[in-house]
């Protein structure tokens, strides 16, 4: 075992002992790192393809809303000014959250924003029995769908200081000595 303060140390993979709210082990850190960059990868991709496609809009998705919040989502879909804002928030929200998770800065804020965004997708079109959608969405397994799984994973990232495991939040922590947010 070694830590950042023993300068003599020259092991290749650094293992952090102190000031992290969990016991570190290479395997644990590495698995958190993987979870973080994979979700970052996914959200960054989803955001970028929407930014790159000038005709993209959330209109169709919002219009397809079912369940108790559908009035709210339909209201957005039918209001072109509001829809424009929602489109923009969605596109750049995904890009920024994805990028933040990817490189591990402001990881906690990014993860919690991701939870909010994904929960909005979830309640817009929850995969409940009896709600029939125009197109079958891949990755729905009754009640639980991929969005919900990703929400749970983001909660873990936000609670386990994931940005400090091979992420730039580690640098911020070194500077301030406080838990990165």
């Amino acid at each position, binding site marked *: 075992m070694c830590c*950042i303060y023993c300068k003599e140390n020259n092991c290749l993979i650094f293992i952090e002992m102190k000031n992290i709210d969990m016991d570190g082990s290479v395997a644990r850190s590495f698995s958190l*790192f993987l979870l*973080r960059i994979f979700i970052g*990868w996914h959200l960054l991709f989803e955001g970028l393809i929407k930014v790159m496609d000038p005709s993209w809009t959330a209109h169709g998705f919002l219009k397809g809303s079912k369940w108790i919040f559908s009035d709210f989502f339909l209201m957005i879909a039918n209001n072109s000014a509001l829809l424009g804002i929602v489109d923009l928030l969605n596109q750049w929200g995904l890009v920024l959250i994805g990028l933040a998770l990817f490189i591990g800065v402001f990881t906690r804020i990014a993860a919690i924003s991701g939870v909010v965004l994904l929960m909005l997708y979830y309640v817009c079109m929850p995969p409940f029995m009896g709600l029939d959608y125009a197109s079958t969405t891949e990755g729905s397994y009754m009640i639980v769908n991929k969005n919900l799984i990703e929400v749970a994973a983001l909660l873990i990232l936000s609670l386990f200081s994931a940005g400090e495991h*091979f992420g*730039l939040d580690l*640098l911020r922590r070194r*500077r301030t000595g406080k838990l990165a947010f």
Partner: protein
Amino acid sequence: MMKFKDFDRRTLLKGMASFPVLGLFGYEFFRRELSDQKEPVDILKELGIDQKMDFSGDLKKNSAQLIRLGIIGAGTRGKTLLFRTGFAPKERIKGMNAEQMEAWMDYADLNVVVTGVCDVFDDRAEMALDAAGHSVKAVSGEKNLPKAKRYRDYRDLLASDDIDAVIIATPDHHHVQMTIDAINAGKHVYCEKAPTRTEAEAYHLYEAIKDTKLVYQLGHQIRHNPIYPYAAKLVNQGVLGAVNLVEVTTNRNTSSGAWVRHVNRDGSPKPGDLKSIDWNRWLGDRPEVPFSTDRYYNWTKYWDYANGLLGQLFSHEYDAVNGILDLGIPHSCMCSGGIYYFDDGREIPDLMHAVFEYPDKGMSLVYSATLANSRNRGRVIMGRDASMEIGGSIEITADGNSERYKDVLDNKLIDSSKPFVTAGGQRDVDGVSSATEKYYIDRGLTEVKVNGKSQDVTHLHLREWLDVIRNGGKVSCGLNNAFDEAITIQMAKKSYTEGRRVTWDPVSRKIV
């Protein structure tokens, strides 16, 4: 302040552990963007296909001269034609949102007024008068507009000298006589399909107006869906190879789609009785029968007034394909069918199938229709090298055994299970659209989106008619198209009613 030396190199490297993965992401994303953008263009180029699709010509042409319109027949279709030339009842204007209003006000440059309205049904005549008074011109504040007058007899409307052109949207049994009378009275004509009800009427119409300088346009709006001229261009470039089979269909499964329209959706009767409808005028020269809302609203069910599936729906299918392949009159036709589903006293079949032969072109046209199933069977043009499905959009798929596409298929540049050319598209069908409305959208007959802008094809078709009246030129669905279509429909009808194969004699110009 953060200082770099606060960290050792290892911490920095550790913090940036994800950067190589981010690099990989960027590289992959870049490759994906490149392949998304380039591939379809390259394939089209490789195949030597012209990729351009335009709206036909400049839409906004000189319209300085005011055209005064009369409308004969202000039912459902007549109301739409009025709306698409810039006339809407007050209530409808109130119900429009900003976007619809803007699109409608865009019709201002048509520079038309409605000065005459003729309908045998008081309710409809009043609706048309209401619309005539609430035009795009009136809404934009123009004063001293001429008021529309109601006529009970269409001949009085035609005799009026404050009308330059008429729109005819009556049931089919009036089309030919009204068209001929209008041309004789010196009025330009936009007449709804079907062009004629009988074979004799087809010759009569042709002979009566073939030499006129006035403009006759048949109401086949699909001619102005830009994907159809584009499809014609592609077919002429040999994209499909030699066309050998064309399959067109009608697939509906609602009572409204089968012309049961005398009741509202909730089952209550629609308005109209002998007090408000001039029944004798409605019948015209047709056999005298007692008034019924069934005959009034559902005239398509009876041979006395129309040709059922052939006149109402096959006519669209024929015209769509005629615009692409320049079919003309077939050599022969076999048609069969029956009344298998609707036990409501109708005379016209609810299932019908017709095969038209074009030996000179080496191809057959097959029409198959049912009013009791709505599975979308599309509209497909099949050639040796590829098939084109065309409705509200175009999809061209290579034939797996094509010679022409052998190389690109072998090189996996295209795939015979996926279209390699797609074009066009229409607005999303929302929950409010009825099944019948969706049917028209799917078949390219309503709205079209080109370069992000929605255009109503009926409006474009009317616009062309008005433009030709003012500036000369040719309409896209004139008398020759109307005659060819009328004869084609009559061949199928004759074959069905006589239970035999009929042929067209091009020398004597008769169906035999």
